[in-house]
């Protein structure tokens, strides 16, 4: 597949617009508050779409397609169980404290509510996470662009080796993100995230449309793939009777409660978008508007995986030729086409990689990208590549803006130079943007050096993210929680997560980065089950220890907790504006919609 002039034109136009938005935003970025909080002046719908985009990195777009092909529509649990309820919770219950406290970051809320050491612990781990995750997603994008071979011809034409495609992809995307955040700060990032949101939809929606047309719609998918791929809740009673290898309790508690609330309700990358809103009601509406859109995302990012699988083979039926439904179409593809999802090759031996049963493994990560190459001729190919690039940049910009704020306010101002001018911190923030991006590039190259660094980073994130939700929850809803309690609870939670991981192993895995590095006392049916239970243990440990230590330490003075704790803060009503803008009503509508989607795809 070669890029035509028109595809290059679309990519160039996109890059020009993104930089242009940075330039326009720069004109209104004069103070620290402008740079780090976008002057708290952004309307709710803009914040809401930016809220989705910042989280929608290339890894999610590619990863959800891959999971769709591997696990089927049950992947939608990551949205309907693992995102929407938490997004409604933060909008209705937690945002009043984040926005109302006037904290400039999530760690700063912890300082106001608890103490400096709890903030420092959270700020340091969070800053490190943002660098690693933007580095890993940069690596993933560069690797993908290399694998798609779309830039092979121009590089060969210029006499450059193929390996340079990887370097060029990393450096170009990093440079563009640097320019628009350096100039426009959070405002530049948020405006671009909205543009990127629409581009991502424009790039993937036609893929789903064409795909469903060919496989005979949802009904065609059902008949081709069989029930285990097309029911989200069937077989969830036991871990052994569904594709995820998780039972409903592990799913709902581990994913739906601990991991989901830990991510959506405490991760500053996400919370920062709502903090930029122009009023308390807008801040509360931000995650709710995002949730209302997000609940339909499975159709956009998971369906390409299902379609790619349907075009590759028909796993539940053995042979595609046995399927009568999509009127011979699938059979024709099976004869003339090697399949959309290729077989995974071992790069050292050049042979197909086999699973435990001796069957060749499929390279699911290429499901969505290969579908894109298959359906999009020149023209649309430019749109599709732009969508991939947009998803990558929005995810990276989310990490970078969160990093520069936490670094400047929670580390630099708190511990290195406390009483400098606003101008000074603005300068430090811009510098932190550049340093953060350089460090991400370093992390990307680190990721390319180690085979399993992705696993390792996922793991550390689970250790850090899972317990922290207990800290925020107790901080906001239990006035008796103390700083010592929060700090010791958070540390214990992380240690328990590491211990649980060191003592358990997924089925058929080798002890090491997958777990069991201390001693194997329990084996989980799948990696996902182990992951969810690590989170459950970590959260419970943090929750219990925070309560226990709080009860034996001196309580905080209640007057200092007004605006930070639920029971001590005057209730606000969200009744300004039309009825449908009321956060409670909006939240209820979103939840009912999610229940309906779960029932439809049960």
């Amino acid at each position, binding site marked *: 597949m070669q890029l035509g002039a028109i595809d290059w034109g679309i990519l160039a136009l996109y890059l020009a617009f993104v930089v242009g938005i940075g330039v326009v935003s720069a004109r209104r970025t004069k103070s620290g508050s402008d740079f780090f909080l976008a002057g708290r002046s952004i309307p709710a719908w803009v914040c809401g779409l930016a809220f989705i985009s910042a989280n929608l990195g290339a890894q999610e777009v590619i990863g959800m397609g891959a999971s769709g092909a591997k696990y089927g529509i049950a992947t939608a649990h990551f949205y309907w169980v693992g995102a929407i309820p938490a997004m409604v919770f933060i909008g209705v219950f937690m945002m009043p404290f984040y926005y109302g406290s006037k904290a400039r970051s999530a760690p700063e809320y912890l300082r106001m509510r608890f103490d400096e050491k709890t903030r420092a612990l959270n700020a340091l781990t969070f800053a490190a996470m943002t660098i690693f995750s933007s580095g890993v997603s940069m690596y993933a994008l560069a690797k993908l662009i290399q694998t798609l071979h779309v830039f092979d011809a121009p590089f060969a034409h210029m006499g450059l080796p193929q390996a340079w495609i990887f370097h060029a992809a990393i450096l170009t995307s990093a440079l563009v993100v640097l320019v628009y955040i350096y100039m426009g700060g959070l405002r530049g990032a948020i405006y671009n995230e909205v543009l990127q949101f629409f581009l991502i939809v424009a790039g993937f929606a036609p893929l789903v449309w064409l795909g469903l047309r060919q496989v005979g719609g949802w009904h065609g998918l059902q008949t081709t793939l069989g029930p285990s791929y097309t029911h989200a809740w069937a077989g969830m009673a036991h871990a052994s009777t569904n594709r995820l290898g998780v039972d409903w309790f592990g799913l709902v508690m581990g994913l739906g409660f601990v991991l989901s609330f830990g991510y959506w309700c405490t991760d500053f990358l996400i919370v920062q978008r709502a903090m930029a809103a122009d009023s308390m009601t807008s801040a509360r509406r931000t995650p709710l508007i995002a949730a209302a859109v997000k609940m339909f995302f499975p159709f956009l990012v998971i369906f390409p995986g299902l379609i790619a699988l349907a075009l590759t083979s028909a796993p539940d039926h053995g042979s595609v030729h046995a399927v009568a439904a999509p009127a011979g179409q699938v059979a024709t593809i099976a004869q003339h086409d090697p399949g959309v999802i290729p077989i995974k090759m071992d790069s050292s031996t050049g042979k197909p990689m086999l699973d435990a049963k001796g069957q060749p493994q499929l390279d699911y990560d290429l499901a969505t990208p290969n579908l894109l190459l298959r359906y999009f*001729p020149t*023209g649309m190919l430019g749109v599709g590549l732009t969508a991939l690039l947009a998803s990558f940049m929005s995810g990276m910009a989310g990490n970078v803006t969160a990093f520069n704020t936490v670094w400047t306010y929670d580390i630099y101002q708190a511990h290195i130079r406390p009483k400098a001018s606003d101008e000074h911190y603005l300068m430090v923030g811009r510098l932190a943007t550049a340093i953060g991006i350089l460090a991400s590039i370093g992390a990307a190259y680190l990721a390319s050096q180690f085979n399993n660094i992705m696993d390792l980073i996922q793991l550390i994130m689970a250790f850090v993210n899972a317990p922290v939700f207990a800290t925020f929850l107790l901080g906001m809803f239990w006035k008796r929680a103390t700083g010592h309690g929060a700090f010791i609870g958070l540390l214990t939670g992380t240690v328990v997560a590491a211990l649980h991981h060191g003592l358990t192993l997924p089925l058929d895995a080798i002890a090491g980065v997958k777990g069991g590095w201390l001693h194997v006392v329990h084996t989980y049916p799948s990696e996902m089950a182990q992951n969810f239970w690590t989170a459950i243990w970590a959260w419970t440990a943090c929750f219990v220890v925070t309560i226990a230590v709080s009860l034996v330490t001196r309580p905080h003075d209640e007057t200092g907790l007004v605006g930070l704790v639920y029971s001590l803060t005057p209730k606000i009503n969200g009744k300004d504006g039309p009825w449908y803008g009321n956060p409670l009503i909006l939240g209820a509508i979103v939840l009912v919609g999610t229940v309906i989607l779960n029932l439809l795809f049960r």
Partner: protein
Amino acid sequence: MSFDVRLPIGLLFLAVGVMVAGVGLVGDPAVFEAHSPGINIDVAWGAVMAVFGVVMLALVALARRRG
């Protein structure tokens, strides 16, 4: 006047939509047939993007008139 993000979105979608639809109209029909049988996706989706761009620009104009 405050910055309206719908303006760049509208302009970009209109420009890209026209470009993609244009390529679909002048290009070799066999190419489009090979990628997505029975539908010229460049023309179809390019038109959708262009219309979306126009709607965004219209919303900007409406907001400005209201002041």
